[in-house]
């Protein structure tokens, strides 16, 4: 089994401007935040981000690195609307491709299965269609429920993702990932849908220790879909990563406040996000707590 463990710097070498990046997790839950900061540090621009959006959408729009967001929603959970995303939308700073939450899942699934689209009813009659003029419908080749013409359905296109990043509770050096929290979300599909996938984790463990951590049902990321593993304890901070840790609500509030004021954002960005490594970030967060 090849050793896929890499450093943050090696991950940064994989990034290029103009890429479409898939980000696992859900809202402010189990987001690969250390890798998001690596993306910031890399300086790449013109990014498209595809996600069930949380702070990665807000941060990469605030830094100006993201030109386009493709999403099912963008939320911080305890703060229902991502505040930096709100600013980006209301100033027209980013292009937004918004899908019904369930329809978004089908875009990931289609990419994973290498089919051009999956059909769904979601979107018929709503403004999801008008908001996405490129979105097409298809007529079923099979008879409708009344024996007549086939039903019309929305064709959710496969998301063309260059690189996905996901965060797991545990992983082995070979690239197998384990989630120990309440929900995998769609991280397996992000890994499958993308040309390349990089997985951060709380802890790299020997393969034979996986079943000491959780049942066989928690082993949902097979290594055939993973290209690199980055060990990053607290790597999802400030988003939640149960059972390892919950959301850092105070820090999330601090982050949310920075959407109101450029100076607040500049100092927050400088102090926490523009740190040179994940270790430096954690040290800054710890010293920030002591300041309070």
């Amino acid at each position, binding site marked *: 089994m090849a050793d896929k463990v890499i450093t943050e710097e090696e991950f940064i070498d994989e990034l290029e401007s103009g890429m479409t990046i898939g980000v696992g997790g859900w809202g402010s839950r189990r987001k690969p935040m250390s890798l998001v900061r690596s993306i910031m540090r890399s300086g790449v621009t013109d990014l498209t981000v595809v996600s069930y959006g949380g702070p990665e959408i807000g941060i990469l729009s605030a830094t100006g690195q993201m030109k386009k967001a493709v999403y099912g929603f963008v939320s911080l959970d305890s703060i229902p*609307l991502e505040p930096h995303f709100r600013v980006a939308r209301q100033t027209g700073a980013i292009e937004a491709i918004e899908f019904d939450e369930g329809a978004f899942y089908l875009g990931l699934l289609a990419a994973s299965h290498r089919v051009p689209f999956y059909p769904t009813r*979601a979107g018929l*009659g709503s403004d999801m269609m008008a908001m996405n003029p490129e979105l097409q419908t298809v007529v079923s080749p099979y008879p409708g429920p009344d024996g007549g013409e086939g039903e019309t359905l929305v064709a959710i296109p496969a998301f063309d993702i260059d690189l996905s990043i996901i965060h797991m509770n545990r992983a082995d050096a070979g690239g197998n990932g384990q989630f120990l929290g309440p929900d995998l*979300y769609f991280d397996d599909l992000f890994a499958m849908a993308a040309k390349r996938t990089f997985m951060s984790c709380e802890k790299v463990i020997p393969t034979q220790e996986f079943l000491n951590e959780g049942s066989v049902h928690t082993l949902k990321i097979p290594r055939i879909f993973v290209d690199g593993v980055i060990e990053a304890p607290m790597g999802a901070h400030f988003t939640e990563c149960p059972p390892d840790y919950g959301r850092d609500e105070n820090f999330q509030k601090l982050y949310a406040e920075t959407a109101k004021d450029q100076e607040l954002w500049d100092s927050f960005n400088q102090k926490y996000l523009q740190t040179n490594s994940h270790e430096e970030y954690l040290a800054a967060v710890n010293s920030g707590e002591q300041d309070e």
Partner: protein
Amino acid sequence: MKRADICVAAIADCFRDEADILCNPIGISPIIGGRLAKATFSPDVVMTDAVSVLATNPLPLNDPSAERTIEAYAPYRTIFDIVWSGRRHVMMGATQIDQYGNQNIAAIGDYKKPKAQLLGLRGSPGNLINHRTSYWVPSHSQRSFVSEVDIVSGPGYDRMRTLGKPDNRFHDVHRVVSNLGVFDFETSDNRMRIRSIHPGTEVGEVIENTSFEMVIPEDIVQTRVPSEDELRIMDLIDPRGMRYQEVPE
């Protein structure tokens, strides 16, 4: 009798006579109302713990440490599967709602560069086209009951008429509950109608606070008041009285 308690009982009544579906209310009063229905007259609906499982016992609001009797695992992927299966009745909020039940929770203004970005489409498009939907609007005003919504996140009956059969066959906007009354679409052209008004509310108040022409039945019924037993259960589900903040007197 407090208005918030009447609202919660009215929400619970939206789920009356339902069984073997996911009762999925979203928001403070809807969750209390849904859990009340399940604890009383609709025991055969299933409900989530708002995280990832279906729990049989009536859980207190926003209490992650509350004891749960778990009957099934329901991560988000399963929730979407249930949406598409049709075995679900969702109750959502609506920043704007119009006479045909078109809902907007997405944004105010032009979608491309909105004046105010709201929650976004979320799951509304998929919910409306797949299964029964009800709405909860805690503040009934001309700003929420509008003649035309800015963006249609959840399509109403006029949109469905345009879409036509068979594509519209699972669409079912069931009830709208506000702080003033209960409304349905059981009219020949599916325009919103007063189903009942809450005790202490005059019809004129509903008319004044609605931007479109509400269908008014000849005999106006009053919304029922909850029983002592229901009030006791509401307190178990909402021990901190969050419903009273959502619906002040």
